[in-house]
């Protein structure tokens, strides 16, 4: 399970970083989303990966760590809001600047091939 989990996080981060380095805003936003998924998974694993553990309710001595779950929830909410903001900003950038390049302008020679 650990191997699967770790490679899942790793693949997500790798794809995320690759997409972040792209020049257009849409891949960048997708990259940010992927990284935030990876981060959420990673945070979740900070409480150690265990199965069949009880919730913290009751008197059982053997329970799962509830804090990472709370952290992940907070991180998801914040990440969601931030992604929404960056999408709106990207759309506005597209309207204001006339293109969706992160730097706000296209290199002339690249103009044709990207269209």
């Amino acid at each position, binding site marked *: 399970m650990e191997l699967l989990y770790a490679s899942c996080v790793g693949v997500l981060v790798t794809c995320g970083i690759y997409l972040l380095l792209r020049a257009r805003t849409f891949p960048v936003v997708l990259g*940010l989303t992927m990284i935030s998924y990876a981060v959420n998974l990673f945070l979740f694993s900070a409480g150690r990966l265990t199965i069949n553990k009880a919730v913290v309710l009751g008197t059982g001595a053997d329970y799962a760590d509830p804090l990472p779950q709370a952290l992940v929830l907070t991180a998801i909410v914040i990440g969601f809001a931030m992604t929404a903001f960056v999408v709106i900003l990207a759309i506005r950038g597209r309207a204001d600047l006339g293109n969706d390049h992160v730097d706000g302008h296209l290199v002339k020679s690249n103009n044709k091939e990207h269209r």
Partner: protein
Amino acid sequence: MIQHLASLPILIPMLAAILLLLPPCGKSIPIRRVVSIVMSIITACISAVLLVHVYNSGPMVYAIGDWQAPYGIVLVADLLSVLMVALTSFLALAVVLYSSVGDDEKGSFFHPLVHFLVLGVNGAFLTGDLFNLFVFFEVLLIASYSLLMHAGDKHKTRAALQYVVLNLIGSSVFLIALGILYGVLGTLNIADMALKVSQLQGDDVYLAKIGGLLLLVVFALKGALLPLHLWLPNTYASAMPVVAALFAIMTKVGVYAMLRVYTVIFGEQAGLLNHMAQPWLWGLAIATIVIGAIGVLAAQDLRKLTANLVVVSVGTLVALVAIQHVSATAALLYYLVHSTIICAALFLLADLIAHQRGKVADRLAPGRGVAQPILLGGCFIVAALAVVGMPPLSGFVGKIWILKVTFDSERALLFWPVYLIASFALLVALSRAGTSLFWERKHQGRDHPEEEHAKPMQVIAVIGLLACSPLMVIFAGPISDYMIAAATQLHDIPAGINMVLKGGL
């Protein structure tokens, strides 16, 4: 009531922001401005009361919801954090005053956003929990994104997009660092982490080191430390000057977080990890001063110049963080207050000057003279003297203090030349800027229309900020006593841990 005092600098800006969105304030501009100013004054007063209270009767630990540390989240109001809160509230008051004559109506929701930003910054200063610090970082960031877009045009959209994307990556790195540290230490309360980090063994040490250094990446990004400073000059120069003045405190949040984390958690008591970030901080800080000084020399307009001044001040502050000694921290605090206030004043001045020079705005090129040369020129020379560190203003005291605390160590060999040459570069750049802004006129004798003159409220805000510089010299005795007390308290780690973990409310 008095035990809830520590939470008020967070709650009152939140209340203010919500009030400002509700109908009577949301509809009418005069009411909105009055309410915003009144609420800023209340926040500033509460912060001042908290500062006096903490100074007289010792630090406060406020357990939110009465959940005691380390299980609940605590707010820690010690001398350092209340100083930062008071500085933030004061700066916000000046910005709200300045904006209330027109700048706030160039876009929507200016006043609520300013109060949300203050909420985030104050929260980041007061919190005693690293995850809570992340949450407050996000609060202040989302407010800053929107403020950056205020009265937006093309260039702002581009700068804002880059700023937002960079900070989102920063937030992800922050979360990963927190995940690693929680996985290793089992806690996110700063005091509890300081306690646990010294007991680490084996592989956990390396994991904690990775986590701690990832945090450094985040704080370097927020604080604009080389090589993560590239966003700052563009962002600050494209934001509205009044917003940029408020942003002067945001790089200091990064510096403050470094100070907390690398002094308390990874400080001298951290066992195998003591002073782990020190070499990184030191080298990067020196490089930041150099790059900032080059940026100041190369700047083509006053706002970019001021933005690069912010970079230089961050470099100086981080160099002092890296020394990790009580006297260095005390000098840091003095310099931090001074540089934040003066940089904010310079941004506001840049706005006034740009407004009166017509088309050339604040570019350092010959153009129309300003309408009020004596007022603006006088303010500019005070700000320039203070920021360069010439006597008799606060910059001089701060500079002497910094040179004194770095003198004893072998660090002086590197730090003194870099810092002094950078100061000289600042002097050259600011003299040149002053000359071309005020003396190189093209269209002599043209009358300025009355409406171009600075409004009384704007003058009050700028002079209020600038007056802090001589005041910090006149009251240098009590202020430096306070800074030394705050630094001593920060460096007395066992007492801090005891206070948070056993004190409670």
